[in-house]
């Protein structure tokens, strides 16, 4: 499959509130050197905990925030240094679906007017809104309503329709269902998958929910404190995550099956402050495998047969899985069965 979008060494720093006139403002890197590529027609799931920079990354990919460093290429064409005018044209090809649906809609406009807005901006025929509204199941009388008259699930449909109305190729979905109840969430997830199949869309699906990411993604990337620590095809990732953080993350997810209770195998400690990241490998203070090397030197993403991970200890852990504090997933399964 051809690559549609490619990000190289993306970084974005923010300035924290200045503490006093005479002190330099503190900088922190919300995203710190992220490279990734998305193939046409696939879904790349980006997983991470709060504060890992996944929302910043999604805005960087779409040029909604200018990067401090690095570049994004769409279809082989650079998007980072183009004029605002060209950017506006590019927006027709790539769109963002927000987590906060209610907040991203103008409260004064009807649903139809919201979905028509991109067409007005780009001078396209307004009838195209009908197709988009029908596609998300909000055609007819529903489209005359205002946002405050609709439920959370319906609002999410509205912003999907608005994102689709210009027939983009590429969507970034930033936690699109995390605010919804399970039964509504399933409706939206199914809708997104149907749309992808019918329209040949390419998705980047950002979420903290490993269950949903498993359901929607073809490939998975795991973020920790502004960096990607592992990328892998979905099946391989869920069968056997390579990075210790991925392993602990996956192991922390409560499985909806009371016969498979996990014993407490917990990521120790709190996530560190993103404004003051640890030296070397950023996961080392919480990592059971950490060594002196990990404390001193940040690991690069390395290739392990079609998947990549940023960890110094992967080979060591593989050689002696029993010795490691974190058992491999296979060994874990047996231990975990609740007697």
């Amino acid at each position, binding site marked *: 499959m051809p690559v549609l979008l490619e990000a190289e060494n993306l970084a974005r720093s923010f300035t924290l509130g200045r503490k*006093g006139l*005479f002190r330099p403002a503190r900088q922190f890197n919300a995203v710190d050197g992220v490279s990734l590529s998305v193939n046409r027609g696939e879904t790349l799931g980006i997983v991470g905990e709060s504060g890992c920079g996944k929302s910043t990354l999604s805005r960087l990919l779409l040029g909604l925030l200018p990067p401090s460093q690095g570049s994004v290429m769409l279809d082989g064409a650079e998007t980072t240094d183009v004029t605002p005018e060209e950017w506006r044209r590019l927006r027709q090809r790539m769109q963002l679906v927000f987590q906060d649906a209610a907040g991203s809609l103008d409260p004064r406009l009807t649903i139809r007017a919201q979905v028509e807005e991109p067409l007005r901006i780009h001078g396209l025929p307004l009838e195209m809104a009908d197709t988009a509204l029908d596609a998300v199941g909000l055609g007819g009388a529903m489209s005359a309503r205002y946002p405050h008259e609709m439920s959370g699930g319906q609002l999410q449909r509205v912003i999907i329709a608005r994102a689709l109305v210009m027939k983009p190729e590429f969507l970034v979905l930033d936690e699109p269902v995390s605010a919804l109840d399970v039964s509504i969430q399933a409706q939206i997830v199914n809708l997104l998958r149907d749309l992808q199949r019918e329209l040949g869309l390419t998705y980047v699906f950002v979420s903290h929910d490993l269950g949903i990411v498993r359901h929607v993604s073809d490939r998975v990337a795991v973020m920790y404190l502004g960096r990607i620590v592992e990328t892998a095809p979905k099946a391989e990732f869920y069968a056997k995550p390579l990075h210790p953080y991925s392993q602990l993350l996956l192991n922390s997810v409560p499985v909806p099956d009371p016969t498979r209770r996990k014993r407490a195998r917990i990521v120790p400690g709190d996530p560190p*402050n993103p404004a003051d990241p640890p030296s070397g490998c950023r996961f080392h203070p919480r990592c059971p495998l950490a060594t002196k090397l990990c404390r001193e030197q940040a690991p690069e993403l390395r290739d392990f047969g079609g998947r990549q991970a940023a960890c110094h200890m992967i080979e060591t852990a593989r050689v002696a899985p029993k010795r490691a504090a974190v058992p491999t997933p296979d060994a874990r399964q047996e231990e975990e069965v609740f007697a």
Partner: protein
Amino acid sequence: MTWLPVRLARAALTMWLVVTFVFVVLRLTGDPAAILLPDDIDAQTLAFYREKWGLADPLWQQYLKYWAGLLHGDFGISFRNDMDAFALVWERVPKTALLGGTALGIALFIGIPAGILAAIWKDSWIDRTIMTSAVFGFSMPNFFLGILLILAFSLRLRWLPSSGSGTWAHLVLPAITLGTGFAAQIARYSRSSMIEVLSRAYMRTASSKGTGPVRRVALHAIPNAAVPVVTVLGIQVGQLLGWAVVTETVFAWPGIGRLLTHSVALRDLAVVQCIMILLALTMVTSNMIVDILYGWLDPRVRVGAGTAQK
């Protein structure tokens, strides 16, 4: 305590700005000697004073001298009664301080409890009564309230004097006049701040511990609600001084406000600039006090996020 030096620096900056502003305005509006001295002065005297005040020197020297003068309490001479401007103003300070302090006391004493009560019994008749009175209170123009009080208590009932400042009885009407609007403002701020606090999750935690209603309000709600009220108070002190000018005129109260009105009418600029600089000093001081209070009340300011994990 990193914020204290910063605040001091900011206060100094403000003072410097105000003084420089006054200096520049004085130079901009024409020959300072001509402005600071009465209009009907002859050219010889004018030249004498110009020499005496060093107005022939280069501007930066004048500026430094001006500062040096201020630091020694030399604000120039009031031409109206040929007195040292600073002495003239300083003499009035206790009167205005007494009036302003009493009014502020009345405002706090009435406004804060009223606001808290209204918030606790939100939407009840207590709340409605207090808030309706508050709307009337702060819509009432200072000068009009003063006149109504004079009509009722001095002219009709003859209980209290309508002007002057000799006895405590003289203080009653002006203090009420000046305090009413502020009591109303403070009641509104206290109420909204308190309502906000009462809806917070930690108030529910307090309930779930089994705290009684009095303890809950006194130990958990009020310390939190006080933070924004104190901030507002800092700004209100300035407004209070502003309205004191009007109140002092209505009741012929011999304070700084009345002096200011007179001096403005007569363009007695030495006095006006002296009052302006003292006023700026008062504002800066009251802001400092508010900042200190603020840090004392709110640990998030006092103990910075330095040791925080997040």
